[in-house]
């Protein structure tokens, strides 16, 4: 092995798991051997550091405290579960209703608009002819202006429904020679 040992290899050697090749290299390479000695020294220091042992009774108290905290937590979790399920069920229903009504659902307080189930007309905002029609409506009936009042058609257009009916009966009588149609 020509190159120096990697950190992994040195750790394995420290653990007594180095291969024969690694051992041979360590025997022949002072640099790698020195690195191994350094980490071994670090290991010995680490091993010498003990954690102060608490008094024997501490462990019993510790266990009791953990047990108490679990006991305190358990009813709280049950209580949460008690109201959480109906709340979630209600929320689910509301969400489902919201989805069914869709994004065009009317806002609260806004009068509900009854729309026909189907219309051949495009929506107002997309109707290009709407503006023209509204302008014409503002100017009055175009037929009124087109027909002069002194013509037959002009006179007919001035008749009320009742007068139109009387006229229609008279014409019918003339056409049939007094026989009923």
């Amino acid at each position: 092995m020509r190159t120096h040992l990697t950190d992994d290899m040195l750790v394995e050697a420290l653990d007594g798991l180095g291969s024969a090749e690694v051992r041979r290299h360590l025997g022949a390479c002072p640099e790698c051997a020195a690195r191994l000695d350094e980490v071994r020294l670090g290991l010995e220091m680490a091993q010498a550091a003990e954690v102060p042992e608490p008094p024997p009774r501490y462990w019993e108290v510790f266990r009791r405290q953990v047990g108490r905290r679990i006991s305190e937590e358990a009813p709280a979790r049950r209580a949460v579960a008690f109201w959480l399920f109906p709340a979630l069920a209600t929320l689910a229903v509301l969400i489902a209703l919201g989805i069914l009504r869709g994004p065009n659902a009317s806002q609260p307080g806004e009068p509900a608009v009854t729309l026909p189930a189907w219309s051949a007309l495009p929506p107002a905002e997309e109707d290009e002819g709407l503006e023209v029609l509204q302008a014409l409506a503002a100017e009055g009936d175009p037929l009124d202006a087109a027909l002069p009042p002194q013509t037959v058609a002009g006179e007919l257009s001035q008749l009320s429904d009742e007068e139109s009916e009387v006229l229609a009966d008279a014409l019918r009588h003339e056409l049939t020679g007094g026989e009923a149609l």
Partner: protein
Amino acid sequence: MTVDALAIPVGLAAAGPPRDAVARGLREDDREAIEACRQGEREAFDRLVERYQRDVYRLCYRYVNNHQDANDMAQEAFLKAYRALSRFRGDSAFSTWLYRIAVNTCLNFRAARRVPQEELSEHLADGGAGVAERMQEDERSAQVRKAVARLPEKQRATLILKIYHDLTHEEVARVLGASVGTVKANLFHALGNLRKLMGV
């Protein structure tokens, strides 16, 4: 250094807790206790606490370096373990799973509190020599613990689990969610940095 001298295992695990405290697979008594807990027998969890409280406390102590915080962290770790018990799949030792919870608890605690002592960079300059020789044994222990607490997070976690809790490289890797190669590299640097921090 001779080849023969290297053949003797130095024993990275020599300073760890008793072997029976560290399971390589799911212990039968742990399995029984866990099953009982899942059936609603809360007292069964007491048995798990009793079995692992020392290890978890010590692990936490190595992290936070004082009794009060170690006590709080250890309790918190057990509480989290109890809450998450239904999610423990049993494909590793209970201790490995518990250590992972404890390490995360300590890491979160340290992140939240941001320990006053400055953490060292990954690579340290050599310190002065001869300091360790002048210390008394207990002072020396305290000094080493302080030095361990100053190691970068990953190095510290690796060193604590490997040296003080006798976990294999593979187990440490599982606890920390790292590769075995990373664990070995972190251990190497942790030991080197510890030596430097101690001024040797």
